[in-house]
């Protein structure tokens, strides 16, 4: 098996190396990828959406269908993990511990977690809501917010984290984020614009079309952030406890 795989991979590598000759050079400004569509995004994006970060504008406005269904894919993944693993508790622990077996954790870890976690959550909210002007947005903010719950679970215990953020609540947050995203699109549709055409929000919010698109991007990013945060926590709960939600990492 192994020598055969090596031969096949070597042949594929040679074939693909010869194919690179026809591809454009490294960092060529005139390459096909940089000449057709993306200059339009850069040159018109600021005037149309009032968002200096072009990546956020393209992510949540020009390609918002893509982002909507990406968040639905992430949501579906958390449901699949739950369907595969979730089961009622058997009462027997099969865990090979990599952590102290004594009850709870020590004071230093708890104190550090107490001082770090609130700062981390505020930073996650900052990243989410400052995504128009700096690197960041829904995905990054959501992942950092979910990581704060993972840190809570690592420094205390899984039960303690699940008292704060219950499993049912996690699933509701998963669904609500995607629903918020789709709901914004439906509101735009009801106002007589296209699905996810944020200019339709201008009448409701009482602002110009450009600012309505900016606010629409913010609302959509919040939806993505909620979904991603809940999915990260859900993945951790399921995988760390082996599905029975008894005892985690």
């Amino acid at each position, binding site marked *: 098996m192994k020598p055969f795989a090596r031969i096949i991979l070597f042949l594929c590598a040679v074939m693909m190396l010869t194919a690179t000759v026809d591809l454009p050079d490294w960092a060529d400004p005139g390459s096909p990828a940089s000449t057709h569509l993306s200059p339009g995004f850069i040159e018109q994006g600021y005037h149309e959406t009032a968002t200096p970060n072009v990546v956020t504008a393209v992510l949540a406005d020009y390609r918002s269908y893509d982002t909507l269904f990406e968040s639905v894919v992430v949501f579906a993944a958390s449901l699949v993990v739950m369907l595969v693993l979730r089961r009622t508790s058997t009462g027997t622990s099969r865990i090979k511990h990599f952590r102290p077996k004594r009850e709870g954790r020590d004071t230093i870890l708890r104190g550090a977690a107490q001082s770090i976690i609130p700062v981390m959550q505020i930073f996650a909210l900052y990243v989410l809501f400052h995504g128009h002007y700096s690197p960041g947005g829904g995905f990054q903010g959501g992942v950092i917010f979910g990581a704060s719950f993972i840190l809570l679970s690592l420094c205390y215990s899984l039960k303690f984290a699940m008292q704060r953020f219950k499993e049912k609540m996690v699933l509701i947050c998963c669904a609500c984020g995607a629903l918020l995203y789709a709901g914004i699109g439906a509101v735009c549709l009801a106002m007589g614009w296209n699905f996810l055409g944020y200019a339709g929000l201008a009448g409701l919010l009482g602002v110009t079309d450009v600012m309505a698109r900016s606010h629409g991007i913010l609302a959509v990013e919040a939806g993505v952030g909620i979904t991603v945060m809940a999915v*990260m926590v859900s993945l951790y709960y399921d995988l760390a406890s082996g599905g029975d939600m008894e005892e985690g990492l």
Partner: protein
Amino acid sequence: MDEFFFFIVAKYNYWASLILLFIGLYGMIAKNNLMKKIIGMVIFQTAILIFFVSIGVKWGASVPIIRFFPDKQPLLDATAYANPLPHVLILTAIVVGVAVLGVALAILQNIQRIHGTIEEDEILEDMRK
């Protein structure tokens, strides 16, 4: 010598992603342990993402966030910013990659639960019984 360096620099992003791609593919095909296969999948995925991002780089271009002159006028010149489109595609692909990793690990735990092992040959032996 300069020509040789230029030749290296001109195409090296493709070489980089190719090397990583085949390391990952070798891990996926030839490793016996299912966890190693999953780590190979992560490396394979990252190689493709690096290829995608690297086609958006331009000479002398900066990060794709609009800069402002001191008189608050935006600098809207397409050659001053990197191509934002690959960044958008990859941004979503990374988060979906974590979701894929989660599903793969869940299936791995289920295999461990059913067969009691994650070595490929032992699983095949267990299935033949």
